[in-house]
């Protein structure tokens, strides 16, 4: 891969030195830069990282304030904005139409954004087509584990089963009826990972526990999620959790019935301060920092980054308002330690 390296570095140098022109004359710039030496790359990038503000675009499927999936990435970019030189952040949210997302991704790349984040697993197919057309742009695709072998695509994902496992352990410790209810959207990706992790954690703590899982079939049907929670309650669940943006409905039911709730994707304490035990919070900024560092170092892609408990990209945030006994919390801490140590596999 000597050739590969060269190309990457060259491109990076170009990006940093001629950012303004890139927007209009990307093609020409590439040719003029071609002759540059690889040795200067390191210096160039360091100065660049300090000097050249970066432009970041996000394309995401749901609303940027959904207290869930989309909000987690927008929040992370906001954190980055405070840390680094960011010239512009653009968001196209609510883009559930894959082809519209593709158009937005292409458009952001064409108008010179340095980092285009395609925050939706369903965008992968399109990204695979678009990324090669914009070799000097970095694309980040999440949640996913595949960069298609493209040198300007990063992938990122969350080991949400880890947090799920930890909270499953807590849930099993808290339940008195021995029944736990989980409200899911559809059995895919991140949601499935979390649900499986939670179930595994609960069963690992107490093999006698019953975990009822109800995928409502919709990411958006709040009323159905609420009724699913009612169904869980009727089936005897005294602990609940759920994932995706429609769970706000289920949280309401849990709050009404005083059933402890575990959140994920964002801190859901604000939804029901009395009953939220803990939330698994995604800190995508961990991933973003790595990506920005790579970009600064001239690497525009090729890696898959995962947020997990070990790198603190996943955090279990407890609700101070919920009286959790020290013993139970200790179980959680133990589970975290075990996972970090590799002593347990969250989804077996």
């Amino acid at each position, binding site marked *: 891969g000597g050739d590969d390296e060269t190309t990457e570095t060259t491109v990076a140098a170009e990006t940093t030195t001629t950012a303004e022109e890139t927007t209009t004359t990307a093609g020409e710039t590439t040719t003029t830069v071609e002759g540059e030496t690889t040795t200067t790359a390191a210096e160039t990038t360091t100065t660049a990282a300090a000097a050249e503000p970066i432009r970041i675009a996000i394309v995401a499927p*749901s*609303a*940027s*304030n*959904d*207290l869930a999936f989309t*909000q987690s990435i927008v929040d992370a970019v906001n954190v980055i904005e405070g840390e680094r030189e960011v010239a512009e952040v653009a968001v196209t949210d*609510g883009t559930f139409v894959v082809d519209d997302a593709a158009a937005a991704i292409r458009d952001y790349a064409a108008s010179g954004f340095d980092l285009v984040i395609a925050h939706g697993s369903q965008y992968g197919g399109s990204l695979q087509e678009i990324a090669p057309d914009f070799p000097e742009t970095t694309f980040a695709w999440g949640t996913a584990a595949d960069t298609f072998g493209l040198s300007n695509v990063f992938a990122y994902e969350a080991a949400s089963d880890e947090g799920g496992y930890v909270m499953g352990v807590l849930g099993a410790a808290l339940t008195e009826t021995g029944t736990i*209810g989980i409200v899911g959207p*559809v*059995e895919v990706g991140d949601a499935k990972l979390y649900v499986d992790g939670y179930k595994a954690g609960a069963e690992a703590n107490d093999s006698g526990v019953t975990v*009822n*899982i*109800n*995928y*409502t*079939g*919709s990411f*958006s*049907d*709040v*009323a*159905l999620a*609420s*009724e*699913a929670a*009612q*169904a*869980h*309650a*009727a*089936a*005897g669940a005294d602990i609940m959790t759920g994932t995706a*943006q*429609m769970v*706000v*409905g289920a*949280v*309401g039911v849990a*709050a*009404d019935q005083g059933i402890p709730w575990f959140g994920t994707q964002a801190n859901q304490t*604000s*939804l*029901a301060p009395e009953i939220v035990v803990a939330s698994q919070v995604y800190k995508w900024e961990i991933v973003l920092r790595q990506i920005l560092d790579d970009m600064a170092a001239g690497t525009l892609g090729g890696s898959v980054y995962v947020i997990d408990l070990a790198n603190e990209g996943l955090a279990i945030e407890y609700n101070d308002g919920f009286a959790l006994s020290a013993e139970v919390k200790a179980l959680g801490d133990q589970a975290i330690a075990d996972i970090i140590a590799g002593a347990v596999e969250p989804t077996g």
Partner: protein
Amino acid sequence: MSDFFTEAVLIATVAGGIRLAVPLLLAALGETFGQRSGVLNLGVDGIMLLGAFTGYYTVLKTGNVWYGLLAGIAIGIVLGLASSLISVTLQAEQGISGIGVYLFGLGMSDLLFQRLVGTPVPITKFPKIDIPGLSDIPWLGGMFFSHSVVVYLAFLSVPVAMFIINKTNFGMNIRAVGENPEAADSLGVSVSRVRYATVTIGGTLAGAAGAALAIDLGIFQQNLTNAQGFIAIALVYFGAWRPLGVMAGALLYGFVNSLVLQFKTLGIIPQSWSDIAAMAPAIITILALVIVARRFRAPSALTKPFTRGT
């Protein structure tokens, strides 16, 4: 399956069905008025969404659920009047203009939510009322007499609607205008006034349905109604344009949904089949439409704008 036949689960299934039926029932009753007078309003879902947001936002700001319901009703009236303007005065093709109202409501409610609220914040819900005496009846009490106050209000509006349609002059005018607007007009019944009134009633109840949904859930989110407005319209046909039939349809729809949820919760329906199970309400509705269409005739003037002298 044996898990299903426990008191708690059966109560939850029936009570859940009733809860799910409420927004459908309110919206469908309103639509019944419009259709009885010859106007199909396909924009119900858009009005519900704006009613839901308005109701939610009002409760968020005032903490009073009744103000929220009233605000939902108020926006419903405004949108009902706008819909009347579109379909009665401007005589837009009713099968299509409603789609515009729907898209507008879907976008606008979300836009307002994002700008005025941002992140979902829970609000006070409607108080739950246990009907004294009745709610203590084993099984039935939990199923029917231990609900939030809007549930009772929604079901009370069924006899009210029946009374208005069948026993009042206004109701007679509605029926006449929906069947033969020329005849009504020739006797001095103002076709457009009746239709403005019914479409506005439809808007009002759709706004109320949306507010009831949001306040009962205690939350708002983009596309909160999830196309329930369209189901409500189908239920009007299902119920053969009669309040009692509409109620039966709403309950059936609610129960099927509730049952599917319970079955999934208890593992009676495997998760991989949940998509297929989710077709059940729509398919049942189509089958019911086949049966109803054989037996009952739609108001003759349905979807036909009226112009005097033709």
